Structures are given as C-alpha cells and as structure tokens.
C-alpha cells in the first residue's frame, strides 16, 4: 500500500473560502432554511440601521419593503435616516465578512461580530446571483452615492460592480437593496412579528413596513427620547480569556505590570492591582511584553482569586420600565389588557460581563386563556424569535411556580397557561448566545437568577394589584353603604316618627373604621416647563411641554381616633416632579414622601402632585405606601417596606 506523503497531503490543503465557510455554516448564521433566511436578512438590515441611527443620535425612521416574485425570489429594501456611510467604507461593511467597528469594543450594541449584513449580501449572491445595491448619503448638501457590489468569495473582499452618484431627497441615510431566494409565504408572519417586537423594545424608533401586496404597517414611535448612549468600557479581569490577556499585553503601551493592569482593564484600582500581582507571585515592575506563558497563566489565575469590583454599568443601555410599559400598552391596545406590570433589576455581572434584566407582564383582556403564555424575548433590544425552548429566559420562567399568581401550570413547572404575555429583555456587553444565529441565550446561572428575580418581582406586583383590588371592592361596598343606604335608613326612620333626621358622622366612622385613601390621575396637555427636576441627569431632550400627569390623593380618616402617619407614592424614575401639595418631606428619584399632619376623625386631607416627562397613560395608578400606622387600618395603601 502506497504511503501518502506529506507532500501529497499539502496539495489538498488550502484556504477555505468564505463562500464555503458560509455554505457549511449557514444554519448557525440564521440562513438554515428559506423562511429563516428572509427574517434573518431583514433583521440584520434593521439592526444595522438602528445601531447607526443611535450612534449618530438620530431618532430612527426605518422603512422596510419586500417585493415578492413568483419564482421564490424576494427583493428586500431597508432604508434608514441614519448618518449614512462614507463611500470608502461601503465595500468593507457590505462586502467583507467579519468586518466591523463594534467587535473589539466592550459596550452594548445589537450587532457584534460583523458577520450580519455581509452574510445577507453573500446569501443573496449565492442564491440569486444578483448584486447588492447600497445608496448612502452622509450630509444634506452631498449627493447620494450608489454602489453595486458583490463579494469575492476567495479573497473575502468586496467586488464593486458600479459606483455612481444620484439625487436623493433624503437629507441623510442609507438604503440597502438585496435579492434573495426566500419563502415569503411562510416567513411573512415572522417578519411582522419581528418588526412589531423590535418596535416594542425600541420605542424611540418608527418602523414602516410594506408588504408585497401593498399593505403597509406603521409601528409608531412612542418615545422621543433616544436610549442612553452606552459607554465603551475596558475588559473586566473576570471575563478575559488567557489568549486575550496575552494579546492585550502584546499591544499595550504600558511598560510595567501594575500600570498595564490599571490602564487596560476595568475595576482595577491600586489596591486590587497590588493584590492581584501579589497573588500571582509576580513583580509589579515586570514588562508585560516580556512575560512568559506561565507568568500570564499565573496572572490569569490570580484574577479569579482576588475580589474585584463589578464593572461599571455605564456600558449598558436598558429600556426602562416606563418605556417598556408604554410600548406594551401601545402594542396591546386591541387586546385591552387588565394591567401591564414591569420590573427592572439592578445591573449584575457574569464572568466579568455586565448585564441587566428587565421584564414586563401583560395580563387579561382578550388574551387567550387556554394557551401557554406568550413569551417575548429580547437581547440588546433585538427580538429573539426562534429556539425559545433553549433560552435561559424560558428556563427561568419555567422554574417559577405561577399557580400562586393565578396562572395554571401543571405540577408547578414549565411554561404557564393563561391570558398573559411575558417580556424579558437582557442587555449586556456580551450576550452569551447559544449559537451564532443569536436566537437563544445560554443557561448562565447569574442571568437565570436575575430573570427569575425580575419575574418574581413582577408576580408579586400582580398579586399586590389583585389583593388591593379585592380589598378596595370590599371597602367600596361599605362606602356605598355609608353614602347611600345609611342616610336613607335614617331618613325613613325619622319620617315614620315625624322627627328630625339624625346626624350620621359618628356612626359612619364606626362602621368604616378605616383610613380610606382614594386617588385619581388626570392628564393635561401643557406647554410649560416643569417646576422641579429629579436628580437624574440623563434626560437629553429639553422639555418642550407635553403631557403633565396630575395625581390627586384623598385621605379620609374614618377611624374614631385621630391618625398621623407618613405616606409614600412611587414615581417612575424617569419622571420629572412638578408641583407637590402639601409640601413633601422628601422627593427621591423614585418616590415622594409626606409626613402628614394629624387627621381628625371624619376629616380629610387632599394631596396632589404633578409629573412631567411622561406620556398619557404611563403613570396610570398610584402605588401608595404608609408608615407609622397599622396597615390593617388603611385601605388603598400598603406597608412601606423601606426603599
């Protein structure tokens, strides 16, 4: 038997072209079948547009159009009002795989790997043989550049077919056109779902979608405020891998180990740096460029042993409870849900990567009662449409016993059944997806715990909401009694005996025997500026008026003795507090506190406050708490458990 020589083998060894790579891995990139290919293509385009607009601080106006041909070819058009792309960069962004500005940066963004949009171009090219067409305009006084390009699959470089300039009425923006083979009939529903979901977690964006038959949908913008810009941070020692550590050391400008650690990593102060170096058994004067593999290994091990502060969370840009609620409200209008409740966790860290969990729950209305709840999953404001079963959010939801909260769930595990929609949004500098197609988040214990905590908080709020409603209904009966029936009894007895009608005040307090708190919320369109402001500084837009939310609270003492207590009302932390009466004891960023004067029996106190910076309906229920009084005496507020 002839021996195969290394030489012969070498003849067969060659570089694998990107086209081959793509062909072999298209399932993990989200192009596994013709339905997925359609949704993925649109998703990559829209994600890119949203990222571009946000980076340029522009409120995104996105236009998506699909033109369907009978032979299975779809033409996709995605257009934005973003900053545009300079001519030289167009071939790199659209014509090269693994090219991007965000891959190396540690901050929250939608795309990361730089595979997305160029993969769409490649998929189009492979399935239809047609080129991608990109129109881009970077300034109002500049012409639009129109580029047609293909990908040279051997070189992983763009092949520019044509370049021209054109007049475009838009002041700025990018338009991307591609033809792909896709299953429009099956994919149609997913495209709509994706765009609707995207709109929910991107309330600052307007998305217009035109279907092949001419039907168009507008997913309206519900917030005029751009998401907080996430700040780029340096890698955290907990999350850095050995190879990366060596690479950073090669490129650093620092000449000594201690300054290297302090400048290249986050959360490394003097003390932590010294402790790490000591733990690794190294000299702080060591030049990182000259370190051996063993020394790096010791350093890497030391990272895990030393207590290092969590990274700063400026790099995250969560949506915020108010906006989630508003979006959900807007998108579920037709369902007219009974209530929408949201919960937001403080940011946390897994393997040195900051992340934050926000959840929402829509309940009741026309939602189906006999079906499993709908779960909407999002990662960095991108909807996750597939592989629900393999996602950490699903794992977390399934592990909660929902039966206590009025949903049915056989054996107390699994996805509950009932009239509800669950929303989970995870923002992170590094979302640990289970695969490159980015459809499911891996079972990371820290994330699972945070999702669970968030949903539990939500469920508690649901329970509170329900028990409050029941309690109020009961007391309302009494209210009915004292306001309508009792006076009638008194009148009738007086009439029968020809005597004057007796006074009722004292009997009313006897019957009620509670402190009754009632509230009312009104909205008023105004053009004035709010009087006071919160401590939060991240409200970028100047308040050009809008809606003022006016909350009125009435407290009546129906107890037989005078009552004195403190009252708290929870306010959204993105609200601006306006006039408050009477004078509050404290305005914190998420509550207002009053130390009320003594209320005599049968007397009442009126309280009012105004909130600006919210849309109508954002704040639709006063969440009231009381302190220094037995909570059993009070209807309409719960015990204040501290901040």
């Amino acid at each position, binding site marked *: 038997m002839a021996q195969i020589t290394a030489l012969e083998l070498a003849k067969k060894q060659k570089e694998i072209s990107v086209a081959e790579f793509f062909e072999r891995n298209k399932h993990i990139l989200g192009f596994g079948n013709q339905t997925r290919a359609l949704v993925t293509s649109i998703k990559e385009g829209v994600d890119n547009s949203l990222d571009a607009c946000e980076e340029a601080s522009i409120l995104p106006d996105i236009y998506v159009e699909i033109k369907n041909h009978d032979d299975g070819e779809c033409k996709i058009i995605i257009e934005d009002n973003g900053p545009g792309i300079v001519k030289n960069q167009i071939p790199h962004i659209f014509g090269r795989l693994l090219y991007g500005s965000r891959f190396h940066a540690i901050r929250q963004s939608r795309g990361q790997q730089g595979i997305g949009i160029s993969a769409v171009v490649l998929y189009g090219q492979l399935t239809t043989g047609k080129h991608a067409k990109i129109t881009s305009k970077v300034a109002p006084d500049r012409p639009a550049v129109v580029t047609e390009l293909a990908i040279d699959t051997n070189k992983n470089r763009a092949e520019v077919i044509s370049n021209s300039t054109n007049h475009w009425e838009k002041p700025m923006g990018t338009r991307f056109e591609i033809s792909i083979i896709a299953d429009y009939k099956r994919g149609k529903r997913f495209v709509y779902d994706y765009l609707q979901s995207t709109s929910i977690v991107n309330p600052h964006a307007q998305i217009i979608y035109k279907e092949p038959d001419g039907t168009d949908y507008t997913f309206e913008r519900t917030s005029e405020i751009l998401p907080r810009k996430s700040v780029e941070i340096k890698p955290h020692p907990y999350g850095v891998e050995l190879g990366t550590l060596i690479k950073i050391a090669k490129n650093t400008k620092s000449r000594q180990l201690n300054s290297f650690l302090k400048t290249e990593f986050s959360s490394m102060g003097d003390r932590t740096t010294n402790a790490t170096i000591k733990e690794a058994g190294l000299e702080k004067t060591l030049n990182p460029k000259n370190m051996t593999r063993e020394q790096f290994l010791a350093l890497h091990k030391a990272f895990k042993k030393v207590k290092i502060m969590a990274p700063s969370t400026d790099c995250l840009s969560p949506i915020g409870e108010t906006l989630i609620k508003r979006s959900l409200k807007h998108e579920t209008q037709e369902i007219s849900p009974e209530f929408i409740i949201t919960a937001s966790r403080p940011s946390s860290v897994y393997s040195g990567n900051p992340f934050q969990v926000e959840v929402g729950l829509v309940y009741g209305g026309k939602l189906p009662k006999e079906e499993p709840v709908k779960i909407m999953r999002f990662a960095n404001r991108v909807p996750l449409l597939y592989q629900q079963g393999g996602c950490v959010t699903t794992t977390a939801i399934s592990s909660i016993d929902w039966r206590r909260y009025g949903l049915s769930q056989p054996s107390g595990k699994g996805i509950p059944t009932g009239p509800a929609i669950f929303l989970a949004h995870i923002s992170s500098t590094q979302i640990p997806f289970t695969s490159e197609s980015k459809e499911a988040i891996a079972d990371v214990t820290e994330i699972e715990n945070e999702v669970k905590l968030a949903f539990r908080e939500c469920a508690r709020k649901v329970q509170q909401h329900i028990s409050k409603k029941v309690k109020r209904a009961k007391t309302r009966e009494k209210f009915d*009694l004292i306001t309508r*029936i009792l006076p009638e009894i008194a009148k009738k007895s007086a009439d029968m005996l020809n005597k004057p009608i007796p006074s009722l005040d004292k*009997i009313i307090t006897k*019957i009620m025997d509670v402190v009754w708190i009632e509230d009312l919320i009104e909205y008023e369109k105004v053009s004035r500026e709010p009087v006071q402001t919160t401590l939060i500084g991240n409200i970028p837009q100047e308040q050009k008026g809008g809606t003022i939310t006016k909350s009125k609270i009435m407290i009546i003492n129906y107890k037989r003795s005078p009552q004195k207590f403190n009252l708290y009302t929870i306010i959204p932390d993105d609200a601006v507090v306006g006039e408050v009466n009477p004078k509050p004891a404290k305005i914190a960023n998420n509550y207002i506190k009053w130390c009320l004067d003594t209320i005599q029996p049968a007397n009442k106190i009126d309280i009012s406050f105004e909130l600006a910076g919210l849309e109508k309906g954002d704040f639709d229920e006063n969440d009231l708490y009381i302190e220094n009084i037995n909570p059993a005496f009070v209807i309409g507020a719960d015990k204040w458990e501290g901040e």
Partner: protein
Amino acid sequence: MNKDYSKVISQIDAVANKIYDDFQKTNIPSLSLPTRTKANITFDEKLNVWKYGKNSTERNAKSLDGAYMLLRTMYMADFIKEMIKIKKSSTLREMYYISEGWDLAKFHSQQESNLLAEDLEVITNCMREDFKLRPEEDGARVIGNITIEEMTRNNTKKKIHCQDDVGDAGYSIPYNVEPEKITFKSYDADFIVAIETGGMFDRLVENGFDTSNRAILVHLKGQPARSTRRFIKRLNEITNLPVLVFTDCDPWSYRIFASVAYGAIKTAHISEYLATPSSHYLGVTPSDIENYELPTDNLSKEDINALKSELSDPRFQDSFWKGEIKLQLKLGKKSEQQALAKYGLDYVTDTYLPEKLAEMGITKK
C-alpha cells in the same frame, strides 16, 4: 267589623324608634331577631309546640346586606302603617311589586319580601294578618258534617254546611280564619283527616269516606298554607276531635306533618297559633311499605339527605319517628298515598284506613 290596629302601629313604631335611637346614641343601627333555623327551635312545654330558642341573629348596618335589610324593613314597616291608615290590604305579591318603587330598598325576588315579612312578624310579635298582608294562595278544601258561618265581603253572615251546601270540591278555606271571619256552628263527626294530595282527597270524597266513617276531610294541598293550619288548629280546639295526617311516604311529607303538629321552622314564632300538637301521623309510614307491600321508588340523593337532616331535627326525636326514618333509610325506598290503588280503588277506604284507625285506637275494629 273593624279590628283595632293601634297595638300593631305601636309595635311597628317601636322598630322605627329602635333604629332612630341607635342613630341618636351613635350606635350602629341594628335589629335582633331569633335565628330562624333548625338548630334554634326548642319545645315549649307550656304551649306544647316548637318555638324559636334563645339564639338570636343581629341584622346591623355594618355590612351591606345588613344595611339593605334594615332599609327594606323600614320601608315595609312604613308601607304597612300606610295600609292600616287607608284601610286596605295587599297580597304578598302585590307588596313585592309595590317595592319596585322603593328605590334602593326594592326586593330582587318575592322570596326576599316574603322572608322579610316573616322577619317583621318575628320582630314585632304581630301576625302577617295584622299587617294586612295576605298570601297569594287560598286555603285548601274541607268536606264533612260540619256547619261553618262565614262573614262575607258584604258584611253578611252566611252559614255553610260542608256536605250539603258545597259541591264535591268542598268548602274553600279563606285566608282569614279568625273568629271575626269564620265560626264553627255545629258538627257531627268522630275525627279529622288532613290529606296531603288532591288525588287522595278526591278518592275519599268519591268513596264517601266522610259519611261512612263520620270524618271531616281537609285537603292540605302539599305544604299547608297558614290559613289551613290555623283552620285545623281552631277546629281541633273547638271540637276536640283527633287530627290525623295522611300523606305520602317520603321525607317531605313528614315535614308537612311536622308543620301541622309541631310548628314549622319558618313560622316557629307563631307555632302556638298554627300547630295542632295533638295531631297524629296516620301514614303512609315506611312500615306500611313493608306491611302492605306497596309499590315504591328508590330514594333520591336529596331524599336521603332530607331524611338524615330529619334525624337531627329536634322535632323528630321521638322513638316512632327515629324508628321509621331509620327503617326508610334501610329500605332505600319511598312510596305515595295513591300507591294503595295497587289493591283497587276502594282498598284505601275499605281496608287501609279502617285498619290504621283501629290500630291507632280512633275507631273500634
């Protein structure tokens, strides 16, 4: 004849006064009345009937239901005062419809207004008749050798012989059977038979049982109306004739007997007016089912529950009833009066009744 209603009015005003006083003394307005349940009836040795016991229920304005009840009571009391003033009376059903105009105090069903009328009787110690409220249904029928004098609506007295002056349907008992309305003139009979079903009443009439056995027959028409029970009571008091109750053989019929003999739970406050303590249960008994081999039906779930409930009913605690009820539960069967027709149409009058009457010592064998 004009009845003196001043006592009734003062009793009604006392209710209004109680409520008014509560308001003035800043007490939560309330009325208390005996608890009207099986658990709260006790045997009154003096009156020889079952009356409400010591347990009382307070209706107060603390709860919505209690407050509504008080308001309705006030409205009803006022309405009764008004009727007395203008010398009218109304049926319970009419009052229910009149309450439509009572705004918050209106009733949601006639059941509610009937119950409240009874409550008001209990509270005031007056009778429905004092309130000028009368029931919808008339009393039942009577056939026998007895002459009754009735004061008619024209204020003329009319003598009626309950065999010669009536058809086969008999004399119809009016809703008011008090002395101002009817008096018993003369009679010639040995006993009174109170019969549950119309079918059996008519059988006895057709067979001439009233003449052949010198009996006064009274049709109970199921659960007997107050006037029927009051009629039997008065007849018994005046004539001293024994009263025999003849019903189906099921738990519901035993309750009919109890209401005639002991007093009904619902009307225990006026048992001494309505109940005839010397009444006897003639049949059909569960023992009769066995002895006469009567055709039967199986007991339903409701029947069984009713029987079990009777075992804990203080009125059924004597050895006769305990034995019969336990026997019936054992048999799992029930039967009807008319099942006796198994042996022919005359069997009941020729054999069954004579045998039973002799057994009870009413007639000689």
